[in-house]
């Protein structure tokens, strides 16, 4: 990528405290090495200790792969991390010996998945499955473990926890299974909880309950959260910061308020316009024209250029780097960068780009 010739260079948003998780220029490729398909391209973001960050994007934007890469769970082959750093408490997980990763998974970083129906082992009781998460990382007696499991099931709101230890996943509803997944994930008080579309497979009322549960987990256990979702509403509910991904790249990053009030990337604006509103008079919901380019097909320029209402000549030629729009907001867009530059120079907004 060529150096941006203009403006303020992207400044990391980290405060004085070192971030808990720092992902830097992460790139993931799939397929044969001779003709790889890059599904995650130079993604960077941070999660502060105790903070909550959401990654939003359409299907195929690379958000799930990014989260799996943090866990070191990219299926390989066919996938591989080709560059970047995933720093957790200062340690680059990508350089860590493979045999040491299991010690971190589940204990320091835990993950819950989109499909609560299929993410639990059908032939193990839920008591055993939660117990396994504890047993793998903590030494305690059988009785202590049992108590801890019951406590966890209580925390996630499973009624009659003692009586359900011996139950199998198929005896639970989808929402209850997701609660079990959460209980399993927080079993060892992880510092970071990655939730990959935790509510997507659930119906709306259950969604709200699970989101409330995530709040509760955060409050009671002080767990940092990295939430992956295609739903900005869900992200707004749980997260303080938002990373917007498009076609494997981060296109905007900001605090939740700024994203909703002053979205700086045309894609983010499109996403916000596509949210149905009750008091809206329009009969047809806005939709971004076109569709997400297939992974790996964008060779140069901004991946959003074909669907962008604001595109200028440069967009098709050169991928814009992340420009700082404000202290807590950055976007990868030439047009926004131009406008911001103009504003900072006192020129009329929108004159040139």
């Amino acid at each position: 990528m060529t150096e941006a010739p203009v403006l303020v260079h992207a400044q990391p948003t980290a405060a004085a405290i070192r971030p808990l998780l720092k992902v830097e220029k992460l790139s993931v490729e799939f397929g044969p090495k001779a003709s790889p398909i890059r599904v995650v391209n130079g993604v960077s973001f941070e999660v502060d200790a105790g903070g909550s960050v959401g990654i939003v994007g359409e299907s195929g934007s690379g958000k799930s792969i990014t989260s799996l890469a943090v866990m070191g769970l990219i299926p390989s082959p066919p996938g591989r991390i080709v560059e970047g750093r995933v720093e957790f408490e200062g340690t680059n997980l990508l350089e860590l010996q493979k045999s040491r990763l299991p010690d971190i998974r589940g204990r320091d970083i835990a993950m819950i998945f989109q499909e609560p129906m299929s993410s639990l082992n059908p032939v193990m009781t839920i008591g055993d499955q939660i117990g396994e998460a504890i047993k793998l990382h903590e030494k305690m007696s059988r009785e202590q473990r049992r108590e801890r499991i019951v406590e966890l099931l209580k925390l996630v709101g499973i009624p009659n926890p003692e009586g359900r230890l011996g139950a199998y996943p198929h005896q639970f509803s989808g929402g209850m299974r997701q609660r079990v997944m959460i209980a399993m994930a927080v079993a060892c008080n992880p510092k970071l909880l990655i939730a990959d579309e935790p509510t997507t497979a659930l119906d709306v009322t259950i969604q709200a309950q699970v989101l409330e549960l995530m709040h509760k987990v955060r409050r009671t256990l002080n767990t940092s959260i990295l939430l992956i979702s295609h739903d900005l509403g869900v992200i707004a509910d749980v997260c303080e910061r938002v990373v917007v991904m498009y076609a494997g790249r981060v296109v905007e990053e900001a605090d939740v308020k700024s994203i909703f009030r002053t979205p700086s990337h045309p894609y983010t604006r499109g996403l916000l316009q596509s949210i149905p509103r009750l008091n809206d008079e329009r009969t047809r919901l806005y939709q971004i024209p076109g569709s997400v380019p297939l992974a790996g097909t964008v060779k140069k320029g901004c991946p959003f250029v074909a669907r962008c209402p604001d595109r200028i000549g440069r967009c098709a030629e050169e991928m814009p780097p992340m420009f700082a729009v404000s202290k807590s907001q950055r976007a990868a867009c030439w047009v926004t960068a131009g406008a911001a530059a103009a504003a900072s120079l006192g020129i009329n907004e929108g004159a040139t780009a």
Partner: protein
Amino acid sequence: MTRYMLLRLADAIPTIWLVLTLVFIAMRILPGDPAIAALGDAALPEQLADFRAKMGLDVPLWQQYFNFLYGTLSLDFGKSYMNGTPVLSLIARNLPYTIELTIAAMIIGVVVGIPLGVMAAVNRDKLPDTGVRIFSLVGYAIPDFYLGALFLIVFALNLGWFPINGAGDGFLDRVHHIILPAVTLALVKAAFIGRLTRTSLLEVLGRDYIRTARAKGAREPRVIYRHGLRNALLPLTTGLGLSLLATLSGSVAIELVFNRPGIGRMLIQSMTERDYGVIQGGVVVLALLVVLINLLMDLVYIVVDPRIRVK
């Protein structure tokens, strides 16, 4: 649960009846006269008639058929035409050898096949996988009686490591006798079980709960055995059941090759002698075993898959 089992058993009754009828008809259609087979070409007509009367062969066919069905119900298959031994005691004498061989072959097949399958699945498309694939292909392709003869020539005749025939007396001697025939049968089984394990395990290892297990911090051996293989057992159970049935029928040829006593050899011998009672009794026992194995598989399913248990 008990009701379910009883229903399953009741289901088997028509099957067994069909087998009985087919065997009865087949034996009567085959050329050859049991009386001549038993008494020899030189027997006098009176002797033959006397023999037929004694064995119940002088009544019309339909009556013989009903006598046979009735006898089966009361577990009385009559006596051997050749030496007058009750068929039931002949079966009792031979059955343990067949069961012993089947179980030994099955154990070796599972103990060799499942690890091979796991190794192949974990090293998918790498050298071990290719090795297992070749082994399976060879195992599928070689008929077991041929492999048995080969083993017999190499390990028993030329090297002298194993006895050439019989089943042996006393535990150690019996083990010594059973090794070659059991290994012969087992190699073919192992090829099949290995393939099956590889396929089911690969399928399971792609499931979401395997990812969950890794996300929990489980290490690979635990992921593969505790979560993977445990779930792969579900489809594997069907295959193992079929394999057990195939081993049972395969033991017929193997008993012949290794000249071992057993139901298989008993059946073949009695066929050449037109010893109707022994054939019918032997087939009934085999049919019962098949039904029992199927029932056993159903029980194993219930143990292996909690989702069936509750329903």
